[in-house]
């Protein structure tokens, strides 16, 4: 089963490589990966979808968490989270199929972003499984091209929202910011 990992990382060169390195070192293939800056430009939010051996999932999370550039990692596979993806589709639409295609697009809440004599460019967002279905249907209309964004995820658990965890600094109050910790504590 695919695992969805959400990370908050420092927006620095090499951060992406370090995170993916934890996976590639084990020979895991990444199914999808999205990265973008957060509101705080010094940080990025990353969502990785990867097929990790269930026995190694928590180890992988911990090893990512150990990376100096990684601020926070959460496994959102089995937690309350929204996972969404975007898909762009170009489909050839001769006159007799145009209405049918538009109907299908409407059912899936897709928008037409370009329309020409040859066909349409469509944009749809949603649950990845829903998009699979949409892509399947569009494929049945013949010549077709697709680009998927990869999943983005957001945890719905309030405790996972904090953006500023305790930060170790060298000077001064060493005691106070040292996290008292059992695992994940």
């Amino acid at each position, binding site marked *: 089963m695919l695992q969805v990992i959400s990370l908050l990382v420092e927006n620095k060169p090499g951060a992406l490589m*370090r995170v993916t390195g934890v996976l590639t070192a084990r020979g895991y293939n990444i199914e999808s990966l999205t990265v973008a800056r957060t509101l705080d430009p010094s940080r990025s939010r990353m969502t990785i979808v990867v097929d990790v051996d269930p026995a190694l999932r928590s180890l992988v999370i*911990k090893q990512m968490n150990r990376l100096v550039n990684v601020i926070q990692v959460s496994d959102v596979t089995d937690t309350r989270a929204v996972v969404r993806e975007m898909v762009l589709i170009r489909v050839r639409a001769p006159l007799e199929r145009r209405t049918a295609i538009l109907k299908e697009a409407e059912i899936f809440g897709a928008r037409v972003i370009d329309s020409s004599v040859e066909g349409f460019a469509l944009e749809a967002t949603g649950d990845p499984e829903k998009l699979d279905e949409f892509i399947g249907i569009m494929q049945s209309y013949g010549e077709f091209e697709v680009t998927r964004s990869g999943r983005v995820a957001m945890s719905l658990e309030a405790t996972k929202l904090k953006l500023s965890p305790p930060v170790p*600094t060298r000077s001064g109050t060493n005691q106070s910011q040292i996290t008292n910790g059992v*695992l994940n*504590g």
Partner: protein
Amino acid sequence: MSNLMSGARMLLECLIREGAECIFGYPGGVTLPLYDAMYENPIRHVLVRHEENAAFAAQGYAMATGKVGVCCATSGPGATNLVTGLVNALMDSTPIVAITGQVATKLIGSDAFQEADTFGITRSCTKHNYLVKNLADLPQIVHEAFYIASTGRPGPVLVDIPKDVFQGQARYSPVSAIHLPGYKVYTEGHTGQIRRAAQMIWDARRPLVYAGGGIIASGASAELQTLVELTETPAVLTLMGLGALPSEHPNFISMPGMHGSYAANMALTHSDLLIALGVRFDDRVTGRLSSFAPHAKVIHVDIDPAEIGKNRVPDLPIVGDARRVLQKLNKFLSEMAPAAAPVNAAARQAWWRQIRQWKEEHPLTPAVSSSEIKPQHVMLEIDRLSGGQAIVCSDVGQHQMWAAQFIRFNQPRLWINSGGLGSMGFGLPAAMGAQFARPDKLVFAIVGDGGFQMSIPELATLASYGLPVKIVVVNNGYLGMVRQWQELFYNNRLCAVELDTFPDAEKLAAAYGIKGRTIDRPEQLAPALREAVEEPGPYLLNVRVSPYENVYPMVPAGSAIDEMVFGPLEPVAVPK
């Protein structure tokens, strides 16, 4: 005074502020500006003969002192030569900072002369690494590098500096604070968990301390000693933990694992509570993991959360610095002692009796012969000279295991070896680093004839700095450990393990202007070692030992650690 400063000088200024005393390095094209700045700088540069050995020497220095070791190499081949050393430091959690030169920022990515993607190559070889693109960031990065290398679970950090950054001029202002939002160091340990651990320890009938390199890294030897004495708990120490308790301490059983003692492995197997401190349940210790310590509950104390539950899921995890955790634990233990100690006293006495009996059944006894020099005999004589006080560095292989079995270490930071990565050619350069760090100490480099031949160039370094390292080559004419496995598990089909040529040690040493000799008779051993130790400079002692000696006891790969073999096995045919 103008505080406009070149990048190279700024780097040296930062190194001085970090208390670096010496840099083990090798210059090259892009580090020319750095070496130019060193010309008038108080930091001592030690010119090694190969960059890999610079990294190893920095580790020897770090392991002997607990301070951060510094090594330096140029771009391209210089940096790639560091790689083995970096991984070695990563595996053994040794704090080093590696400085590498890089081609000028404008040339990066153009396949310039001596260009390599050092930042990319070393990403997985380091705890963290940096490529400095702007001179303004340099001081911050250098201090971060030292901070990351030395805190939490120590490790190697690499700073890659392009030539134009070395050459650039900027205003230097000292760095006062480090801000690393993603760097988490858990030192304190959860008080509630520690209290529960204390209760578990008193509740146990057959407790056992299983401690390792984390004790040495955190400087928790005294606390560990208090723990075992307060609770009268026996202890085993891993290869990386030797010296964490004095070898002569009555509670110390010995090293466990593949070549550990029978008593240590039996104690692990029959214990009902493992107090695992700064260890990582390495496969060389646990043998077949599913049969490891099957009756034991596990308290696992480690500073690295990723180690908890990696190999063995603990019943009680405590993430924290071993020293701080042990301080609290000892406090709780002594508070509880009056009421708790008598409860299981009888069971614990029986446990001790059992352990003593195991020790007597199969003691670790060094083989000694009057007709040939047994490698174990070499260790025995070195141990006699050391008295548990000398620094002993080793490579990897049979000699390493014999040294670990038979040489006493009565203090931490005396035993320096390549444990996790198992790098050949580690011992001699590490001994150089240790000798620089501790000029007062007797330093042995115990190496095999294979590993030594990877380190021969460093004889020049020893000679040039007059470092009185005593090299003892345990020379059996084979890559002994590989041969042992071919004998036992590959039907004795010996392939590419015979080292039939070895240089004349006396002539080799003389060629570098140092003393050396070869011995092959047991009665020569003690006098030759004494001569080596009394020699004020370096000494190369080549000891021809019995060629077919193997390391026992042994836990065959894939076996449980109580399934030990005490002497030569019937060879096992390899399935076709």
